[in-house]
């Protein structure tokens, strides 16, 4: 029973965690460079608010952004869960698990709402 539980739950969580880690490591730096540096300082392209806003309205961009934003939430949740357990909170691990992944799910729902309303 315990094995089955771990086998069914953990692989999914771990996949989300890995995917989120991959995105934070590979996509975030590029995004930060573009939106935080290249566009505002007009080093590459003229990223006016209107142009970016139009781009964001495209469903495909929204879908991509959804994954780019929500998966790292799960990365955070997994890391944070283990960090808390590792600093000695194992006795409340169920609550930690619920709060962390719950937080990630909540974050993902908020992401959907925000993207939907663009």
């Amino acid at each position, binding site marked *: 029973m315990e094995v089955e539980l*771990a086998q069914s739950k*953990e692989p999914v969580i*771990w996949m989300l965690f890995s995917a989120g880690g991959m995105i934070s490591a590979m996509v975030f730096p590029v995004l930060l460079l573009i939106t935080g540096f290249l566009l505002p300082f007009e080093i590459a392209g003229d990223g006016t608010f209107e142009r970016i806003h139009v781009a964001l309205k495209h469903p495909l961009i929204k879908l991509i952004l959804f994954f780019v934003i929500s998966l790292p939430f799960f990365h955070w949740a997994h890391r944070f869960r283990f960090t808390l357990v*590792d600093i000695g909170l*194992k006795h409340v691990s169920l609550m930690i698990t619920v709060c962390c992944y719950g937080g990630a799910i909540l974050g993902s729902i908020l992401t959907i709402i925000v993207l939907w309303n663009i």
Partner: protein
Amino acid sequence: MASGRTYIWKRGISVSESIELEIFRYCPEKDAEPLFKSYQVPFREDWVVLDAINYIKDELDGTLSYRWSCRMGVCGSCGMMVNGEPKLTCSAFLRDYSSGKIRVEPLQGFPVLRDLVFQMDDFINKLTEVKPYILRNENGEKQVEEGEYLQSPAQLAKYKQYTLCINCMLCYSACPIYALDSEFVGPAAIALAQRYNMDSRDQGRKQRQEVIAGHEGIWQCTFVGECSVVCPKNVDPAAAIQRAKVSSTMDFFKGIITLGSKE
């Protein structure tokens, strides 16, 4: 040889210098708490920490207890903390510790029996738990007349690395997860399970999964990677664990796909 004294030249021996070894001592019958005792040991270029400890035992203090056997990095019994790091003392050269003082403690994370000797029971149980031997399905066993199970060099290469483990327990000592929760199956045992799982002659993966993929198995690992850093045999147990995670995840998806077809 009548021509006077014979002189045997030995490179790098300089007996004049000495080095201080600070050794963890604990005798459960006498000491309420462990203490450290210092010993001055000749410093020799070609001496390893184990040589220095043997010198202490032979020349300075015969009451010192510790484990060793092969003196060549094969038996896995001489693991100790050397200046805070898990090391095979038979492979840790004095010359690599320039501070003039070396601190030797029992491998951290295990109950100390006496001085540098610690209890290995937990580790041994974990090794047996993962069924580290070739398992065949029911009726899957070949009859002797049918000959041996053949294996190609490529099939051997898949798991060979994991066969190199010498059960020295350095990886357990380095693992922060094991330090916090000794229920964790741990690096070497999981690497050993992988060794058999990836062996083309074996059919026992499912049985091992119960231990490996359970709550105290691979999913406890947060990929700190220290096990692979300290491993003296380059077994890379951290990679074994990550691979086990990938294949268990594959199992899960295969399970979903085949669920429909089962009914």
